């Protein structure tokens, strides 16, 4: 058992989240994630899966419980949350690219401002990352001149530019036209095969089945069920069955 916790890069224990308006978004959620593991979280909308993901880099504060990222406690007042966030990349449903910067500008901004890298170094690394996500030709385009799929790939490159240990994906393909989902999932798959620790909130069951090491099902703020993909999709858990019946 001790080995288990040693390997965990994310330890979330007994997370409670109650909004000021009384909404109970997370109820006693615990999840350990190992280094290099790909965990997919699925569940109906309003189940708290995005909220849980956002607690992992403290975009959402928690009401109770503890979270450790690489042995650093996020609830400890002495922790510099900005340092933790450098290690935890995040990709959003709505891309959230900086519209006043080019693709390359988006990727290079944080390394320059936060890691204080010289511009030439940051831009060189940025070009390589953009090449890696297949956007070598689009580096100097502004986000408004890129398709949704291209924007999301820039967003992934932007998060990777900080050399994070963990990548969080918050429904990365939900805002995309169907024909662009594939290109984003391909980038995520190659990232997974490079050994990146990933936590992915998604409705892409195919991705879960194919790439995930573990699939987690959340409903009404509770973590209902977690399993390996094979067992997960053949489970006869009634709540899961009801949900899968609705989406498939």
């Amino acid at each position, binding site marked *: 058992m001790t080995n288990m916790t040693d390997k965990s890069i994310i330890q979330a224990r007994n997370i409670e989240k109650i909004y000021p308006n009384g909404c109970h978004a997370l109820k006693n959620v615990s999840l350990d994630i190992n280094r290099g593991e790909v965990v997919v979280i699925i569940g109906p909308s309003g189940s708290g899966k995005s909220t849980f993901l956002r607690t992992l880099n403290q975009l959402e504060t928690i009401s109770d419980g503890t979270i450790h990222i690489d042995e650093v406690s996020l609830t400890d007042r002495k922790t510099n949350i900005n*340092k933790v*966030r450098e290690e935890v990349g995040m990709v*959003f449903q709505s891309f959230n690219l*900086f519209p006043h910067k080019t693709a390359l500008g988006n990727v290079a901004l*944080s390394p320059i401002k936060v890691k204080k890298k010289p511009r030439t170094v940051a831009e060189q690394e940025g070009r390589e990352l953009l090449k890696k996500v297949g956007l070598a030709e689009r580096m100097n385009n502004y986000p408004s001149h890129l398709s949704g799929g291209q924007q999301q790939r820039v967003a992934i490159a*932007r998060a990777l530019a900080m050399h994070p240990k963990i990548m969080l994906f918050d429904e990365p393909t939900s805002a995309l036209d169907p024909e662009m989902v594939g290109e984003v999932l391909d980038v995520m798959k190659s990232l997974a095969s490079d050994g990146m620790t990933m936590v992915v909130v998604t409705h892409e069951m195919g991705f879960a089945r194919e790439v995930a090491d573990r699939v987690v099902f959340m409903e009404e703020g509770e973590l209902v069920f977690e399993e390996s993909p094979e067992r997960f999709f053949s489970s006869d858990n009634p709540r899961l069955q009801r949900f899968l019946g609705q989406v498939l």
Partner: protein
Amino acid sequence: MEKQSHLLLWKAVFVLIIIGLGFGIYAGSKSIDYTWRWERIPQYIINTEATTVRSPFDGTATIEKGNKLVVTSDYGDDPLVIKKFDNLLVSNGDLVFEGDPLVEVENWNIGPLTWGLVMTLQLSVVSLVFAVVIGLFAGLARISTNPALRYLSVTYIELIRGTPLLVQIFIFYFFIGTVLDLDRFTAGVAALSVFTGAYIAEIVRSGIQSISPGQMEAARSLGMNYVQAMVNVILPQAFKRTLPPMAGQFINLIKDSSLVSVISITDLTKAGREVVSSTFAPFEVWFAVALMYLVLTGALSWAIQRLEKRLSASD
């Protein structure tokens, strides 16, 4: 094609209305008992009247080659050498006495209205810089989560927006100016920047709030702290969005600066009043003053439009 010709028609209507208005003003000016003396105005903008150089001592004038006038003194003073002039009033070998006109020099002197314009420009530019700084910090404080900052900012904005600028100028000059021993110009600049700052604060606040919260989240998730995210991500976008209302506020500032003439700062408006009292041509002077304000505000709004166009590269 149908639509094209309609557009042309309406443009013609516009031109006709403008001509009609112009004629109306002209007819109006003829119907009143008033002698228009436009020729009196230009000298108050740029004075081209020649100045006469007079001899400072008794002596002899000689004209040397290359059109150089040398006056040698009878009493051993250093000779007077004039190299540049427009009209020569003496001949070679003339005896001249102290006070005799020697040459005329045509130089361009800035008239009182132009001095007023320069003062208005100085007031506006200095106030603008302070107003933007005050407005930026008050706007940021307005959306701060810290109640002390937020209430301070709200109090400031409400106090300033709720009282007339004219009254504020009097308070700044007579009360605060006395307490802190401020000169007129400083008091005027302080009143204008504090007044405009309150409006800019609201523009800054609405500009920042118009940026989607996802931008701040994305910046913070990349490890930027609040200040870095504001400076590198939120404010550049907000700046672009707030340019049109900012332009309006800057133009208001230039126009509002006319109110500081009440504390005897010789800006364009006060210069206009002084010129009226020496020319007795109030209509012409006020039209000229209005035109000079228009030049300032027009140039500003042109410059901001250029800037907007340049920033629209990322749209």
